[in-house]
């Protein structure tokens, strides 16, 4: 039953990704891309990565659509009659090459829990965090504990950089974008 859900979700994400790549109308692509983001968030949740799914929810459903809309509001939308884009042959070749490389990489991954995985090349460090992270930070998820606890100042610095970038973007734009010329 788990695999049936996974297959159905995979089909949905594949359909949304293909539609995003092939549709010609930019506004339609933005809407379809939001649907793709919904599917990916479901995938993250299904694979038990709730923090990533939460980020996808905030970024995909909120910020990305707004940014893309703001972008096409300041540019021109060319109105071509065709609905479906004709695939570009060089792009297809690049895509095929990337696909081969990624499938090759995924098949070479060490098995889940394998003792030969690179993470076990330094067992003392791994074991230390697995054993102490809950006691030190009271966070159940060890990855979250490292990200927000042990290297909290680093994550805080990243957040400051993103915030500064957002503020400077606002300063550069400087005006309401959704205005009639």
């Amino acid at each position, binding site marked *: 039953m788990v695999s049936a859900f996974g297959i159905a979700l995979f089909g949905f994400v594949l359909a949304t990704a293909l539609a995003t790549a092939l549709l010609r109308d930019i506004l339609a692509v933005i809407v379809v891309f939001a*649907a793709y983001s919904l599917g990916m968030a479901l995938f993250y949740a*299904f694979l038990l990565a709730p923090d990533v799914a939460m980020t996808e929810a905030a970024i995909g*459903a909120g910020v990305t*659509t*707004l940014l893309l809309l703001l972008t096409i509001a300041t540019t021109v939308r060319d109105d071509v009659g065709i609905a479906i884009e004709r695939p570009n042959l060089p792009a297809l070749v690049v895509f095929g090459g990337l696909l081969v490389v990624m499938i090759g990489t995924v098949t070479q991954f060490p098995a889940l829990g394998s003792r030969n995985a690179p993470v076990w090349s330094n067992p003392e460090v791994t074991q230390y965090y697995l054993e102490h992270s809950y006691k030190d930070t009271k966070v159940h998820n060890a990855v979250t504990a490292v990200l927000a606890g042990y290297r909290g100042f680093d994550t805080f610095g990243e957040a400051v950089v993103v915030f500064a970038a957002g503020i400077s973007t606002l300063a550069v734009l400087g005006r309401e974008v959704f205005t009639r010329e």
Partner: protein
Amino acid sequence: MPAGAGTAPVAFISAELVTDVFLGAATAFILLAVAMFYRVVKGPSTQDRVLAVNVLGTNTVVVLALLAAALGEPSLLDIALVYALLNFLMAVAISKFTVERGGVL
């Protein structure tokens, strides 16, 4: 699973069955989402597409809640809440875009 004090719980419904039923329901909702996605791709006007994606967003909230019940992960309910809160954003943004551009896109 709450059982009556002192009495052994009668296991008509096993935990595996509950998981299977919830996951099956989630799968059915995903299939419905695929059907709704046809309208997103086909929809002649942008309004059709936005409305269809709004339905997909609501669908996602339901699937997340079903997954939370099936996998026993209550934290997925938080993501469902975030989606329910953010679902209206795109509709509002595209409506504003349409109005400011003047006329129906």
